[in-house]
């Protein structure tokens, strides 16, 4: 009897170890895209926390923090189709203090083909810009007070400039939902309405070929200096250090934003989805 019980236990153990874990492979016929975000000032890599830049208005300035959202990316196929990136998320947050945010490995499979342009929203549109939509750092720190329109900052570009008196003045070059006021002061009690300041950016792609199981990396560059020139010359001495409650200033800044982005490069990454999944499968076993 005892021997039979032992056989029973061994039999159960054997049966239980016979079900191996595995990854179920799926046909894709698609590739992947990664965005790499780089930040420059006049074609040189951004150098932070140092007073080393001079804008078109002649303000010496430094950049200390840079963080922003892009959303609703579309890729335009040469066959006329357009692909909306939103299968997992339509929003990406970029923050130079968090290097991991400087690469966006897009979840969506990209159908094979040739793509000739890409567009995205700088900031967040009304549908996506909802207070408390993000609750974790670092995105949560982009919170835009409800009383000023709610949601999140589109952009936080923080730094300092040297005024004509030689004093270093901190600036918060912040973009988000603007307000209209009934009076001449920016008292929150006199807010009469809100203005959506997000804007769309469209960039041509120098031939993006998506092959099956391949990964393409697109380097997206932001030129910081462009925020302060074309079409409007931005003078910190005129606009001051805080613009969250100054709709005219935010409108001016947004109008300067149309050409801050460019495509630096597109490279094909040899690592394929298939090999990645193989690695994943091996690690599980």
């Amino acid at each position, binding site marked *: 009897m005892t021997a039979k019980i032992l056989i029973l236990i061994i039999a159960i153990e054997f*049966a239980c170890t016979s079900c191996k874990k595995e990854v179920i492979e799926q046909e894709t016929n698609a590739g992947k895209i990664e965005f790499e975000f780089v930040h420059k000032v006049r074609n040189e890599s951004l150098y932070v926390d140092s007073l080393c830049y001079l804008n078109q208005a002649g303000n010496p300035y430094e950049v200390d923090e840079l963080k922003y959202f892009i959303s609703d990316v579309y890729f335009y196929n040469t066959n006329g189709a357009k692909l909306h990136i939103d299968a997992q*998320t339509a929003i990406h947050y970029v923050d130079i203090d968090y290097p991991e945010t400087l690469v966006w490995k897009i979840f969506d499979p990209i159908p094979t083909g040739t793509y000739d342009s890409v567009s995205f929203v700088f900031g967040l549109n009304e549908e996506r810009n909802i207070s408390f939509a993000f609750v974790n750092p670092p995105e949560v*720190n982009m919170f835009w*007070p409800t009383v000023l329109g709610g949601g999140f900052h589109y952009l936080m570009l923080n730094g300092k400039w040297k005024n004509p008196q030689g004093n270093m003045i901190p600036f918060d070059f912040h973009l988000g939902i603007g307000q209209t006021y009934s009076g001449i002061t920016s008292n929150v009690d006199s807010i009469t309405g809100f203005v959506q300041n997000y804007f769309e950016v469209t960039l041509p792609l120098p031939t993006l070929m998506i092959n099956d199981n391949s990964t393409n990396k697109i380097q997206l560059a932001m030129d910081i200096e462009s925020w302060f020139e074309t079409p409007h010359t931005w003078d910190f001495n005129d606009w001051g250090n805080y613009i969250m409650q100054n709709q005219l200033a935010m409108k001016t800044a947004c109008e300067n934003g149309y050409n801050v982005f460019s495509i630096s490069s597109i490279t094909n990454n040899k690592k394929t989805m298939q090999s*990645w999944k193989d690695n994943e499968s091996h690690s599980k076993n």
Partner: protein
Amino acid sequence: MRCLNYLLLIFLLLLGETSFSQQPVDTINLGEIVIQGAKIDKGNKVILDQASINRMSLPDIGTLLRNVAGVNGIRKGGASIDPVIRGYRFSQINVMADDGMKVEGGCPNRMDPVTSHLEPDDVESIEIIKGPYSLRYGPSFGGIIQLNTFKPKPSDNFEIHLKSHTSLSSNPAGLGQYLLFFGGGKKFYFGVSGSYKNYHDYKTGDGNKVSSSFRKYNYSADLGYTPAKNHELLLSLHSNYGRDLMFPSLPMDERKDNTTLISADYHIKNLTSLIRKLDIKVYGSDVYHEMDNSQRAAYSSVVPPYTGLMQAVSKVDASNSGGRIELNLIKGKHELLAGADLEIARKDGGRLTRMIMVMNGVETISTKNTNLWKDSQMINSGVFGTYIYDNQKFKINVSARFDLNQATSTDTLKLIKEGVNYFNQLSSNYTNLSANAGITFPIKGGHSIGFYAGRGMRSPDLTERYIKFLTVGYDSYDYLGNPQLKPEINYQSDLIIDVNLNKAGKLKVDAYASIIDSYISAVPLPASVATPKSMGALGVKQYKNVGQAWFYGFEATYNSPVIKGIGVVLTASYTYGIQERAIKNILENNQVIDQVELKNDAVQEIPPMETRIDLNYRFYNQKMLFTLGSRIVAVQNHVSESYYENAIFGTVLMNMAYEFQVNKLIKLASGIQNLFDKAYYDHLNRRIVGSTSRLYEPGRNYYMNLIINI
């Protein structure tokens, strides 16, 4: 399926030797808790008596249950350990009090499992049935835990008694005091009790303090009345209060818990020669639960990487009311239990989130109110019947149960994307059929063998149906309910073998296997559909029926003969669970970069194999008992990838216990838990919020209980 085939094969082999004799009574030693004379009947029913409950070092029912083979617990703080039977957890097990009284916990994170709403000293015994084999108290899926509280009894002469239970412990440092007055006469009899507990933070084996303090107090009153011979009316009230219970594994702590349980029972015995018993019960339970993050750093100071204060408060009202009626008919060797029951569960509550930031020198406060449940309600009504035939040569049990289950909510959330209804139609109605059968054969030589097979069907609970964006699961995801979830069905079989080894002792083995259809798990939702609302959440998962899951395992108990007062008890338990299909997000730098479908992924929160060996020595005219216990926990490598579970190392723990019945009135129970002050955690312990490290168990604990019965 292969496992089932093996079980069937072994079962047929063993049937060849069947013969008939009396079913044995077992002695079970549960680690530092010794339970002598605990009966095991109806297959795998385990009964814990009050003596074993009084021996506890920390009066928490979940802590006690963790010592039963095949029963484990999920720890999130210093108290309120959530029981798990053979890997079945939450609503997969039916936890109730006093023949069918249910309690609906108020916390979506299960800070307050049903076991936490009763004062352990009020509990006289606990019955555990593993598997879907008892259908008398509502749908049963993976098992039943029945907590039987103190009930006054009539006596021929008017009497008054006092029971006092004082408990002290060093880790956590704390004190518990319980007092019960009871007595009465033939017509009226009563019991009035009260308790207070105050425990501080505990220290792990490596000296780290864990924020785990708690305070609880309670009072209860019971009144019995005998209007006529064989008739009895029992009225009962339990009020339990929890204050400032800390849960380092959860985003918030329990600030306040007010629970009221009331019930009325009417029993009639020997109504006719055929009707042996008629039981009628009505009950109501109400829970108010309040939790917040006021003791967390982010509430009152800016904690990098946050740049503002994050404050959250949740308040939930939950209730459960219902009743049951049951007839017990006996004629000769035939017995029938038949009846009907009703359960109405309700939950309503929300969360207030405040974000306070200073911008340009001006403080701004943004607030958001979200409901967690909005007037959620579930009504379950059922009829059941159990037929028992016992001719002393073999015993047969056959049970069936039919349930109507309806759920509604007035939630206004609509989550529809590209034609997919993630959260939309809120009402659902199900008809559920459960059934089981079992047979037990005594075999020549004092052995016995039993085979049980059952189908347990349960509708999803209010959390699985309607919860909105809270980290209620094992992983750090916000969970979203699914109003259109289907019921899950457990097909389970147990093979139970009792072996009389004569002078070598007794051995009992219970091997089981189950297949679950429409298994309820959770799958990740894209951020474009839903983003998390809880601090620290990685993303959002939604409850889904994901296909089949399989559970296998066994429990074994060996009792040596007692020689010169010395005996050894050995128990072992093992569970293996896999699910047919699971979805896993591939994360890189907190970004979801891909998703894979896994086949045969482990079910999450399955305990590792565990063995206990206890050496008992009873001496000084049986008045003293010394126990040296060991708990050996194996490595758990079979972990869920889709829930990002980590493997754990095995561990060995030692405990000591000493008990002295000083005289008829006074009993002393003391001991040392975690004798070698080992730093360890159980596999089911949750992670500490904001980190990847698990919540460690307490280090060495000296405890003493003084029980006085007058």
